[in-house]
């Protein structure tokens, strides 16, 4: 009984922290000026937050569901940085330049000659 309460408390703490990190990632996506800074914000926050929520849910599941949740978390930890790297590489090759200096947000990131 004590262990059930302890596991649920750990689970809810991990879920709360994960939702907080997902929210921070959304703030970075909405407010930062160009593609590279947005990727910098969203990738790390999404990887951390999604993994924390899934591991936290695994604490209150039966063993097979916990194994599936850990598999999904490891899959997100592998594929999400890979996807961000591919997006950043594609936008760099396409010719989008990072914002430098005092440019405003919506104008930044356009291709230059």
């Amino acid at each position, binding site marked *: 009984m004590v262990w*059930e*309460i302890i596991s*649920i408390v750990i*689970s*809810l703490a991990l*879920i*709360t922290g*994960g*939702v907080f990190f*997902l*929210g921070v*990632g*959304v703030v970075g*996506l*909405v407010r930062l000026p160009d*593609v590279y800074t*947005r*990727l910098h914000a*969203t990738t790390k926050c*999404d990887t951390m*937050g*999604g993994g924390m*929520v*899934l591991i936290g*849910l695994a604490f*209150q*599941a039966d063993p097979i*569901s916990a194994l*599936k*949740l850990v*598999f*999904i978390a490891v*899959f*997100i930890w592998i*594929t*999400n940085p*890979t*996807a*961000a790297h*591919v*997006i*950043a*590489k*594609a*936008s760099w*090759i*396409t010719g*989008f330049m990072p914002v430098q200096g005092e440019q405003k947000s*919506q*104008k930044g*990131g*356009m291709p230059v000659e």
Partner: protein
Amino acid sequence: MEDFAQNVHLVAVILILVMIFFCLGRAIVGPTAPDRVAAINMIGVKAVVIIAFITFIFDYLYYLDIAMVYALMSFIATIGVAKYMEKGALD
């Protein structure tokens, strides 16, 4: 304790839905194509998390397999669109 956990799951799902609407706004507004791809990748991760929550709210254990397949499909879609942006073709 179980009821409290269920309420926490519901509140978390509602918060993640509000975040998804902000991501959708960035995907609509976003001035360049890589912004939209990044926003849609983020929506995919949040959808996987929401499907995992639904598993525990309604006690449908087979939804975890759907979450797994959704993670795979979201990753492949992102890679495909990025490769199309980079090379102009998908061959």
